[in-house]
């Protein structure tokens, strides 16, 4: 197939992004390779691990299961867009640090994005809500206890209210 690249315009972390991509380019690859937003991580690349979770129009989604060409006009928020510009940590990130919710850190951006979306929709989650909400992100280091503790702390601080 010759050059079948497609132009697409969307917003990423409040900034306009204008790309010309092959239709098969996923949003995750476009973020990392075209826009240098490498905080979005790719683990499984088929929707299982959750490391690539981003917000599209406010909803948490797998960026490896969307093609960039589908994003025309959409509003995308990545882990970079959830962190304060001065390099400090937001309350969800701080909870992960306080509670040892990460070891190698590979899965952490996906957890932080998912938890941010969960708390935005449900500011007073039960323990079961938190565990169900975290079930779509895989971590191979921590055994999840630190992550669940971080989620509880983040929920307790009222993030998302």
């Amino acid at each position, binding site marked *: 197939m010759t050059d079948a690249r497609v132009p697409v315009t969307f917003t990423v972390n409040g900034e306009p992004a204008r790309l010309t991509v092959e239709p098969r380019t996923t949003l995750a690859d476009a973020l990392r390779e075209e826009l240098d937003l490498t905080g979005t991580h790719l683990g499984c690349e088929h929707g299982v691990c959750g490391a690539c979770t981003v917000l599209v129009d406010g909803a948490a989604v797998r960026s490896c*299961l969307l093609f960039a060409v589908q994003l025309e006009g959409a509003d995308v928020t990545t882990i970079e867009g959830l962190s304060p510009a001065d390099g400090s940590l937001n309350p969800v990130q701080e909870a992960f640090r306080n509670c040892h919710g990460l070891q190698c850190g590979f899965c952490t951006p996906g957890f932080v994005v998912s938890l941010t979306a969960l708390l935005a929709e449900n500011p007073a989650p039960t323990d079961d809500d938190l565990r169900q909400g975290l079930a779509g992100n895989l971590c191979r280091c921590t055994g999840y206890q630190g992550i669940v503790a971080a989620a509880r702390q983040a929920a307790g601080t009222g993030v998302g209210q």
Partner: protein
Amino acid sequence: MKAAEFRYAAPTTEAEAVALLGEHADDVSVLAGGQSLVPLLALRLATPALVVDINRVAGLDGIERANGHVRVGALVRHSALTRAGSAADAVPLLALAAPLIGHFQIRNRGTVCGSLTHADAAAEWPLVAVTLDAEIELRSAAGARSVPARDFFEGPFTTARQPDELAVAVRFPAWPDGAGFAVEEFARRSGDFAIAGAACAVEVRGGRVTRCAIGLLGLASIPLRADAAEAAIVGTAVGDLDPEAIGRAATAELEPPTDIHASGRYRRRVGAVVVARAFRTALGRANDD
């Protein structure tokens, strides 16, 4: 884990979409939520020449109540059915089944009609569609037709939908007020496809079951109904019903598939348990008035 090359089209009307499907029927995939299709593309289990993205087609995202049905359009996401307060409340099985699908990130994108046309034998919407005798509305450039759920699923990942047809909606019949519903499934990890599952709908009048539907998931290559067990239940006094015996009866004749997740024999035993649980819960929710 990168998809092979394909051409991309994003029509904005149903007519345009079905025209594209008709023109390229030999090598085309429909992209709605993409939660099943994109993994197939990434793993190169599917390598269509053209992907038709229907997300910009107007008028496909409605949930409507009409003529005793709830009609769910092709772009309705699973997550829309996890929230109360929509027309979908008339079919309680929808809100009971939706939270069992994948994880919330998947439910934000995946669609009901996409799950039906993908036709995984362990998926929830095919189970609900077969349990309630839903009808799938298909449209092609040549016209429209409705296919009953029991005729729609032909085998694993195989349906009555032809490559030039778009599943534009599914109609789930509403049962009368007072009917009880439940879905139960068993998966080894939260969000995984279930090893076995069951959906039940029960109507009780004057202390007897007057209507009953039992659907089975993961126990064959397509979702099934437990017809003989249903027939034995209808007319029986509520006090004489034994959910465990119903579970065994509903699954006794089945020869479920063996795979890396479970042997066929184990699947059948799990099936009997989930049918019993679903039936007991549905019966408890049925209001005899």
